[in-house]
């Protein structure tokens, strides 16, 4: 995989790359250092970085700061500030049973989707490791659910969950419950698991392709040596594939946690968090508070809570990326 960015990133450590570490004594590194000394890049660097910095500062950093400030103030729906209230919004939020329920539901949502997705995708990736007729076709077909944006995916499943004309009902009727009529999305005890399944369905392709790419980069010699020693298929998986895949698995799990945690379209399109907020996650709770009820206090405080959780993920992600890629 010489031409992939993954290897480009990895090789960066040994050239004049991101981490100025190895080959410090080589002639090339010396000439690069001499060259660096003779060029002060500060002025040029600020010119090259300024537009990017401005874009991120104005449209990512500034909104975060503004949200933080809003959460400590009374703000009306037109953005007019009406006085400092300190932690009042947070106290109200944490005594709101709907918020607490949405927070727990977000944990269930994230953990169950990511866990199931990872297991299924790992299985698919291992099967795709083997040569069989139609493998390229399977890979191509995997791209189909991924290419379908979440809005269309969610609309499609909403139609399939139609109590009278939906395909899920037809399947249930066909496999031995001919007269059963189910309001899949009207009952939160059914709607939420169904949406979890849609989340899994939508996450499998991406995860499988990442894990398959990871498996492809495992050294083939390891398998050959183990096979000569008479290792079984299961041993190969447990003792070679799994440990070798650990860094890729870590990245894919973390990314999925972040994507799934942030996911908005599935729940919004299928139930809008309803009935009566019973299928809300923090994200749909936030959206409804802000843009349906215009409760800017609750919405901004929820944003900050979500932000804090994301910050935790971001620190974890930064550390993993730094270890894996920049080394």
């Amino acid at each position, binding site marked *: *995989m010489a*031409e*992939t960015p*993954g290897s480009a*990133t990895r090789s960066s450590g040994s*050239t*004049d790359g*991101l981490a100025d570490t190895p080959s410090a004594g080589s002639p*090339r590194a010396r000439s690069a250092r001499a*060259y660096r000394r003779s*060029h002060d*890049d*500060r002025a040029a*660097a600020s010119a*090259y*970085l300024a*537009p*990017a*910095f401005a874009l991120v500062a104005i*449209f*990512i*950093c*500034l*909104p*975060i700061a*503004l*949200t933080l400030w*809003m959460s400590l103030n009374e703000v009306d729906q037109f953005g007019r500030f009406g006085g400092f209230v300190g932690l009042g919004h947070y106290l109200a939020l944490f005594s709101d049973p709907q918020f607490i329920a949405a927070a727990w539901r977000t944990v269930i949502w994230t953990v169950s989707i990511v866990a199931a997705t990872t297991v*299924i995708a790992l299985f698919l990736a291992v099967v795709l*490791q083997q040569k*069989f007729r139609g493998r390229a076709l399977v890979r191509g*077909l995997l*791209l*189909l659910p991924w*290419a*379908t*944006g979440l809005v*269309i995916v969610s*609309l*499609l499943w909403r*139609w399939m969950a139609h109590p*009278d*004309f939906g*395909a899920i009902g037809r399947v249930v009727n066909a496999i031995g419950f001919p007269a059963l009529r189910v309001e899949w999305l009207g009952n939160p005890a059914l709607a939420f698991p169904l949406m979890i399944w849609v989340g899994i369905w939508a996450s*499998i392709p991406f995860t499988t392709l990442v894990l398959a790419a990871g498996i492809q980069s495992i050294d083939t010699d390891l*398998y050959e040596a183990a096979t000569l020693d008479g290792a079984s*298929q299961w041993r*190969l998986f447990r003792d070679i594939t799994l440990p070798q895949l650990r860094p890729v698995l870590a*990245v894919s799990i973390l*990314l999925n946690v972040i*994507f799934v945690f942030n996911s*908005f379209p599935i729940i919004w399109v299928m139930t809008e968090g309803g009935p009566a907020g019973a299928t809300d996650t923090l994200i749909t709770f*936030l959206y409804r508070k802000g*843009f349906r009820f215009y409760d800017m206090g609750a919405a*901004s405080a929820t944003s900050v809570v979500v932000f804090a959780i*994301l*910050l935790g993920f*971001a620190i974890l*992600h930064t550390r993993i*990326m730094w270890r894996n890629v920049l080394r």
Partner: protein
Amino acid sequence: MIDVTYLREGLPTRLMRFGLLALILVLLLFPFIEMLSTALKPRSTLYAWPPAWFPAVPAWGNFLAIWSDVPLALYFWNSFVIAGGATALATLVGLPAGYALARFRFPGRQLFLYFIIGTQMFSPVVLLLALFLMLNAMALLNTHVALIVVNAAVALPFTIWMMTAYFSSVPAEIEEAAILDGAGRFRILVDHFLPIAAPGIATAMTFSFVNAWNEFLLALTFLSDAKLRPLTTGIYSFVGRYEIQWHLLLAASLVAIVPVFLGFLLMQRQLVAGLAAGGVK
């Protein structure tokens, strides 16, 4: 590519494994068959009892109706403007930034890289309230510019990350030789770095484009004018009507998937490599 088919393995294990594979594939692909079947149902049979798995007479006319009954072409155009604009902006801004981060030495470089990887995690959800108020104050609400700029800002960290990785892999000698020849920084970037980084640029652009193309939340929040809607909120607006015309909705959805799916097929290798390296969906 690993070839492990030479492994000794019993027939039952093989059958079980491929049976499971087939089951998962059916679960993954069945919804698309249902989508096609519904898209081909005539209006009259959509809500007819008992529901049919497939329409007796496929109503191919649905695929024509979506262009006249629904402004699908307009939605396509709006999606194209938003995704294309965001991709162009993110690339134009991200290229020089990645170059500087990979090649220049200046204080704060490491910090900036941390900052870039960190901001990659912030989905627009947490920014939504404040962005809404800011865009309102800037009189950008209900414009494509708002979506272009915000989508570009969201795509920028990955673009920079990808560019930095590629530019770092260019050997220092090439750059030094060019400098001895008297070439300026910008000339070197265009002549020596862009050709090498072309695959990385293509990958980053694909991701920016597809993410903006499939983006829903920002479009839902910032655009109220029906004429400005991209495909995502345009198709979603079917739902607001009294009785949802699922046959047209799903026919439009199928058409909307085609360009992205074809793009994904073409870019398959770069996409997977990009996922492994930078971590975006």
